[in-house]
């Protein structure tokens, strides 16, 4: 009976694990939907900002802003890595690290001083393991990063860029392309270069010159540029949150299926063991009876 009991015990523990992975899958699914709603809401805002920029571009303005300009010397760069606080999400964090290490080497080769900032416990431990010095760490960006928190980070970085303290900002994060494809990317947010690629599509039908600008086009522009940077960074945070949930969903679905498979195999082995045990017992009883008869 020993073997059958051991199998039964193992099957029980696999069942428990399956329950956990299945629950995690469902939770990840629910959180993914909520995170996706936030991305949709944010893109409504982004779209309106883009329209506004279009209208500004119609007014024939020469776009210039400290955030758009490259500093004459790139002396100090900041690399911000967005990872998750929790594990159990498949290759999500691993892919980000791979890109982050590559980008780090790349920046170190170009820029004398590099500061690394990390969001997420996973990233903190991985980079600390690699002995990369972390200037700042954030762990308060949970499943749903709030705009207020992201804004604070963005404002801090922008202020430092404008005052010339830093000359470059790179963000490494998981970009959400579609629900079946996410990609770890490194993007340079500062200097911004141009205000999006919308400069070329000036034929939107609406004539922007019909607008009255208050107080002035320059003043509006002064505000549009930082806003679009803040929104870009917010988008990065939202994307990485969505990607984390998707990866976790996929990973946990796989884990649940594997657990099912193991349970099936164990059940089969258990039944066999049990049956052979019963056969053995019967044989023994029959053997005993035969022995008594003679």
């Amino acid at each position, binding site marked *: 009976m020993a073997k059958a009991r051991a199998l039964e015990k193992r099957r029980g523990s696999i069942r428990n694990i399956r329950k956990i992975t299945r629950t995690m899958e469902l939770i990840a699914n629910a959180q993914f939907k909520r995170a996706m709603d936030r991305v949709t809401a944010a893109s409504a805002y982004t779209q309106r900002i883009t329209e506004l920029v279009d209208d500004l571009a119609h007014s024939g303005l020469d776009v210039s802003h400290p955030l758009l300009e490259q500093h004459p010397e790139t002396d100090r760069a900041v690399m911000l890595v967005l990872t998750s606080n929790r594990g159990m999400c498949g290759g999500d964090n691993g892919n980000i690290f791979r890109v982050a290490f590559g980008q780090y080497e790349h920046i170190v080769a170009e820029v004398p001083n590099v500061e690394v900032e990390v969001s997420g416990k996973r990233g903190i431990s991985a980079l600390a393991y690699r002995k990369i010095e972390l200037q700042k760490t954030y762990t308060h960006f949970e499943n749903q990063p709030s705009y207020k928190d992201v804004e604070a980070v963005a404002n801090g970085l922008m202020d430092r860029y404008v005052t010339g303290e830093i000359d470059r900002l790179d963000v490494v994060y998981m970009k959400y392309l579609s629900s079946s494809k996410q990609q770890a990317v490194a993007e340079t947010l500062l200097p911004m270069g141009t205000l999006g690629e919308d400069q070329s599509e000036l034929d939107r039908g609406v004539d922007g010159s019909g607008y*009255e600008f208050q107080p002035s086009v320059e003043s*509006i522009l002064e505000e549009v540029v930082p*806003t679009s940077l803040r929104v870009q960074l917010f988008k990065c945070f939202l994307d990485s949150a969505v990607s984390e949930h998707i990866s976790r969903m996929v990973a946990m679905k796989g884990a649940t299926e594997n657990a099912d498979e193991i349970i099936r195999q164990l059940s089969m082995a258990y039944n066999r063991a049990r049956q052979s045990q019963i056969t053995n017992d019967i044989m023994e009883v029959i053997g005993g009876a035969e022995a008594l008869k003679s």
Partner: protein
Amino acid sequence: MSLMLCHRAVDHLQNGTRIMASLRCIVVTPEKTVLDAKTDFIALPLYDGEVGIAPGRAPLIGRLAYGQMRLRSGDTVDRYYVDGGFIQVTGNVVTVLTNRAVPVAEVDPIAARQQLANALKLPASTPELEGIRDRAVAQARGQLSAARAAS
């Protein structure tokens, strides 16, 4: 005769707009669409002073300051605190793009006072730093005045 007709048409048009006159106000923040409502009149804090918008206003793009936005429909006035951003008026649709929009009652005056005190302590030795400080001060003062309007 044709002139009279023309006049009558204009009268009709004006009456028509007056009867169905209402603005559609959409307030969008990066996190969600806070408000999408019909209203009669909107007052907003622009960067260089307050602007009032009634139905039929000419198209406008404006830069918002920190302060309270008032929406009047009938006899009721709703007050919100808006945290910078932009306003776009096209036709009778007013789109407010802001970082944060909350009813004034939800603005915390104690936190705002604290923020003002912190902001005033910021250095202002270079033009850039001065700009950063001015923004922080304006934001704190806007919150304070909005909170005052609530009480």
